[in-house]
């Protein structure tokens, strides 16, 4: 009798390790779930998800959330065997990278016509459709600035001044979508040569390059550094929490990226993916986006946010996503060459 039990024990061990976990979860997820990959902020998702599932009670969102870099990396890693049905709320520049790999399924969501032209892929049907815009914003810790007698910067150019030496944090463009939009917008705004010259000077003042776009603002909020180059949503959120920071929108203009939606080619739940894509351009959805972002895809929905200036949309620089995606690798290589060597003293 015990012999039989032992055999069973062996069988259970193997089965448990190699099958039950995998098959069980796969089965559980197969129902009417749509696999969504997103880089939306964790604290935004719940409201969106509830609203969508109310609108489409037959579809349930299974959400994979991570930073832009990680989500993009995951999608690329899974290229041969896509796990996601739809990418939702991921940087447009990242979607262009995926598009270049032929991973996106062209689809025109119902109600696409109402979307601002600037918020969609120009092809028809579009490979991706934008949702909202997030833009470069400085978080400036007023308490630490006062202690150190550091003036409030007004422009990007100010940040290159020696007074900010060691006081600025920005995201590493190699790992953060926000970091990349900063660099690509500076290059587009100032031109190649001046752009790199500016970054050379800025580099002298950088305390640390972070791997996340939110972190510089959080570091400024907690007083680790005085200035964090981040984006407006994180900045507002920190200020609401009581951080002694001011939001600064450099006057030369704000680099931005767009959170966008795209269906993955070969989606297992194509129907569910299309429903989410449709919902994403509705007024209801845009109304929700507008609670967090000043500029959204549907005209007339966006409304000013508490700490964000009314003319926010006008302050955005021209951002050529195609150019950014095409030059991404080159830019990052150059950036690494110049600034990864931070630890060595400049001769």
């Amino acid at each position, binding site marked *: 009798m015990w012999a039989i039990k*032992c055999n069973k*024990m062996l069988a259970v061990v193997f089965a448990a390790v190699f099958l*039950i976990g995998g098959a069980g979860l796969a089965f559980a997820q197969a129902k009417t779930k749509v696999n969504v990959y997103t880089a939306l902020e964790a604290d935004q998702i719940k409201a969106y998800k509830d609203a969508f599932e109310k609108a489409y009670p037959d579809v349930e969102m299974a959400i994979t959330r991570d930073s832009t870099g990680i989500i993009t*990396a995951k999608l690329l890693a899974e290229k041969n065997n896509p796990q996601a049905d739809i990418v939702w709320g991921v940087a447009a520049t990242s979607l262009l990278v995926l598009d270049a790999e032929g991973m996106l399924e062209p689809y025109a969501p119902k109600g696409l016509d109402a979307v601002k032209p600037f918020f969609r892929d120009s092809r028809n049907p579009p490979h991706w459709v934008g949702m909202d815009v997030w833009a470069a914003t400085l978080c400036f810790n007023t308490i630490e600035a006062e202690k150190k007698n550091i003036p409030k910067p007004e422009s990007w150019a100010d940040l290159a001044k020696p007074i900010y030496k060691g006081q600025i944090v920005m995201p590493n463009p190699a790992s953060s979508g926000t970091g990349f939009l900063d660099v690509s917008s500076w290059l587009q705004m100032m031109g190649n040569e001046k752009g790199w010259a500016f970054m050379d000077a800025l580099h002298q003042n950088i305390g640390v390059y972070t791997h996340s776009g939110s972190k510089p603002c*959080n570091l400024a909020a907690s*007083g680790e550094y005085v200035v964090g180059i981040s984006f407006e949503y994180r900045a507002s959120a920190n200020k609401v929490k009581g*951080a002694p920071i001011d939001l600064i929108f450099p006057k030369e203009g704000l680099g931005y990226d767009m959170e966008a939606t795209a269906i993955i080619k070969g989606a297992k739940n194509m129907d569910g993916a299309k429903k989410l894509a449709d919902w994403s351009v509705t007024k209801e959805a845009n109304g929700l986006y507008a609670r967090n972002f000043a500029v959204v895809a549907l005209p007339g929905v966006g409304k000013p946010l508490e700490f964000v200036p009314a003319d926010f949309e006008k302050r955005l620089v021209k951002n050529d996503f195609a150019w950014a995606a095409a030059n991404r690798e080159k830019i990052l290589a150059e950036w*690494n060459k110049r600034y990864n060597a931070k630890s060595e003293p400049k001769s």
Partner: protein
Amino acid sequence: MSAVAAAPARRSLDRDAWIARVAIAALAIALIVTVALPLYAMLSRGLESKSGAFVGFANYVAYFTTPGVGRAVVNSLVIALASTVVTVSVAFAFAYGLTRSHMPCKGVLKAVALAPLLAPSLLPGIALVYLFGKQGILKSLMFGQDIYGPIGILLGEVFYCFPAAILILSTALSLSDQRLHDAAVSLGASRWRIFRTVTLPGARYGLISACFVVFTLAITDFGVPKVIGGWYDVLAIDVYKQVVGQQDFQKGAVVSALLLLPAALAFTADFFVRRRQVALLSARSVAFRPRPERVRDGLLFIFCAAVALAILTVLLTAAGASFVKFWPYNLDLWLGHYDFNNKDGGGWRAYYNSVEMALWTATCGTAVVFLGAYLSEKSNLFAAGRATIRFLAMIPMAVPGLVLGLAYIFFFNDPANPLNVLYRTMAILVISTIVHFYTVAHLTAVTALKQMDPEFEAAGASLGVPWYTTFRRVTVPVAMPAVLDISIYLFVSAMTTVSAVVFLYAPSTALASIAVLNMDDAGDIAPAAAMAMMIVYTSGAVRLLHWLATRGLARRSQAWRGR
């Protein structure tokens, strides 16, 4: 007893031999699939272009011609060496105090010294920010130096690697031979001379072993430099950046191969050193019993207490930080940082996932590891299969977690692989974690099995009892302390691990340790500290249970363990 000659009717036992063969084959195949093939997939990916064409070492050439790369290599080596020197020196003195002195509170001190095992390697990084960051409580101790960078990494790695060094060194030092000391004392040798000629040589294999282990841990750790490394690039971070930041899997594979190299070298060297140490230990000797000596004991106590205080400070800082509302501007006590559901990283679900994952890892892992060790050591069937198990069981120790995680993506997410149903499941997290920590667990099991009478199996077989019955009725009960050790080791490791699983988790299987990483990444450092502390509390509670269970077991088995 008259019918001696009548052979009793016994069940067919050839079947039992086949069960053993099948079990050996199954384990060998499982290890090939979960260790050898993923590593092969990873290494071969490094030789392919993005489109999958074979390009030889082009990716390596491309990587090495990238400016600044040599620096990551140099930085990694510098950090690993510095961590090794500092950790092993401090740990040696600490272990010396634990084993060779009559200082008070040894039990408490040892418990504190081992406490870092309960925390993910991200925790020291987080705590160091609170202690020595720009707003740190002890900022003045930094004398204007920046904690973000080599100093922070070094301090974090020392905290993280300390328990491993303590375990090895206190074992090595406690195995010293009293007779040598007596001889030296009776010959009138000075204390320093005894230390130099008796203590150090006796512990030299332990020292070498500790150096290799700490070096490997430090060079492959990802958590500390991730949190506090700042601009100081190390190879482990480079893998993360290549894959996550630049989505360059080929280069990720290249860096992984580089990371594999020093770890594999250290591991190989350590393996041979350990083999020699076993020979050393098998010699019969009299256990060393330290005699009280007030000055020495006092000094050692002060030193050990200071080290323990430092460790506690790190842990308590993280614990405290998790309750402060908005450091450093609002110091109200607040539980809001434990409201993980509105943060990155998966919320409380991630915590429960971690506990679930750790339980699976501890149960399945212990079963597989112990059965594997048993079959490979005690069976005499299917030699090739047993050799495969023995060999592959040693590999994981030389494979950094990040490399393993990347290898698993390459291998398990290949649509041509029928095992890709495992991808994105709890099962793959459990498998990768078991594999990641396989070697130590396997060695623990092997050691316990080797201490058993080698004739138990033969005795069982000669009595016509199938091997699995003897395994169940004798081997497992006798080895129960080791079985519990393995399961607790796997549980705590599964709770704290980040590196392998960071590439493998799915939304429904986010883990607490990864939540720490992601929350820290997003700058939510207080919630990150809170989640890290949840891990510490949980592993600590489980350790306590383990301790009680071991004590209960010891009491229950006192009769038969004898003496």
